[in-house]
């Protein structure tokens, strides 16, 4: 079962909330990144099991980052997250190489486990 996660989001407040929520649920926080380039570097350096990847990153978009990760690190599980509604993004996320999509407000360790298991 995947246990280490890289959180990629340009909002510090969300990174902090998400880290604490997942840690409380038994996850290890491998690291955090605030934009696409940082995410690619951190993914290679830290080799997490999962990347939680925000769609609306400054510069390179989250979906572009997802494609790069799929091409460069196909074994890595990428979960695209957003404050927007999931129905809009699920298909896009999968088409760009992600394992799935999660609305930020629904994030818990259990929900993430379920998505990765599914």
């Amino acid at each position, binding site marked *: 079962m995947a246990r280490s996660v890289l959180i990629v989001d340009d909002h510090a407040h969300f990174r902090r*909330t998400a880290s604490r929520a997942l840690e409380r649920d038994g996850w290890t926080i491998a690291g955090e990144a605030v934009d696409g380039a940082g995410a690619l570097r951190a993914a290679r350096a830290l080799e997490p099991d999962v990347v939680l990847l925000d769609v609306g990153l400054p510069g390179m978009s989250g979906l572009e980052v997802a494609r790069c990760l799929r091409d460069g690190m196909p074994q890595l599980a990428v979960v695209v997250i957003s404050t927007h509604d999931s129905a809009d993004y699920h298909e896009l996320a999968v088409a760009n190489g992600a394992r799935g999509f999660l609305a*930020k*407000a629904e994030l*818990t360790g259990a929900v993430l486990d379920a998505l990765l298991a599914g």
Partner: protein
Amino acid sequence: MAVRMRMEQAVARAVAGATDASDAYTRALCAIAQGVEWPFAAAWEPDVVDPDKLRCVAIWAADEEGPGAFARTTWATALRRGEGLPGQVWQSGRTIWIADAATDERLPRRPAAADAGMHAAVAFPVRSERGLVGVVEVFGATPREPDAELVAALEVVGVQLGQLVERRRADDSRHASEQRYRATLQAALDCVVTMDHRGRVIEFNPAAERTFGYSSEAAVGREMAELIVPPKLRESHRGGLARLLAGGAPRLLDRRFEIEAMRSDGTLFPVELAITRIDVPGAPVFTGYLRDITERRWAEAELRASRVRIVEAGDAARRRIERDLHDGAQQQLVSVAISLRAARARLLEQPAAASELLDEAITDLAQGLEELRELARGIHPAVLMEGGLGPALRGLVRRSPVPAQLASVPAERLPEAVEVAAYFVVSEALTNVARHAPAATLVKIDVARRDGRLVVKVRDDAGGGADPAGGGLRGLADRIAALEGSLEVHSPGGGGTTIHAEIPCAS
């Protein structure tokens, strides 16, 4: 026959020297009366206002002393058709001779005639192509029986006089019309430039002088193309004129179009132009009516630009609101949701941890609410709608990071658009000070009504050098221009910045 010839020649000579129709009449009356050696003659015409009455239009008297009173009576008399001597001629169309008017009871002016020593009287029609146009009467100092030769002579003179007077009258009316045309031309706001068939300027009015920078003397006689048509258009102008003169169909006559013209210094400017062919005998003459539309073009361009800016500003504002919501309240609410989910999962087994998570959620919710309030205020300040400028501006002053003072503000409510514009002037000014001049120690705000306008002044004591074309100020200027007001920014380096807005506000 001799009498007739003499009188015709005398009348023709007299009328030839006349300055206008009235003078022609007087001279003719003199020639007629002197021809028969009678002391008084008068001409009558239908009244201009009431054409059913004859009125005296000219009098000649040999001696001012004698017929003076009779002349006054004659001037004052109006005669209907058939009434008095002239009225009878007007009705019958024939010459009437009365041997002694002083004894004829039918004549309204008989007493005056008797007093003035007027006796023999003859009246004859004045005729032109239009028919009977007037009546001339002549009075003699002694009674006299009708003289057939004299009557025949006077009737011919009546026809001669009719033609002469009509011609004079046409000249007068032509002259008056020309005078009116001149006056119109002089006062016209549009340039009026007339050229002959060779393309030479024959008329250049004062508006044209002002617009093109040539005096009328300098312009008249020059080729118009060379004078005011830009070089690149000259050949087509000359070609068009040649085509038209050769019988080609006019392409530009009698319609309005916009084109470039050239001033005396060679600079080009846009004009609105209409060309008319003037209907005169002989070679054609063309008149162009031109209006400098530089300012109108500029105003149109400015209007278009400001519309674009208003639309762009609206789009930018929506993007900013979306961004602010996304970065602020939305993130806080996401955290609240995550904390609440985590708390629910621990509620039974780890109540202490759940309680801690609920506290986090409450803190995040409070922050989210504050961000929403701030955002809502930026979109449209609710307090402004509810309480007017005073409370809204005091709120801005309270929240301003740079110390600010509200020196004056009208207590009464103003039109909503005026209040909103004034509020944003102050709000933008305070934001700018906080952002670009944090060294300011005091921002002073004055809002007052003056002469139907709301005057808003915001002064800071920082270094100055603000950019009046900066995005926020430009948007404000557009907003105020839409209310027909004005916004000025004075920001001399080292002298602080003053934003001065004036917005019309009908009471």
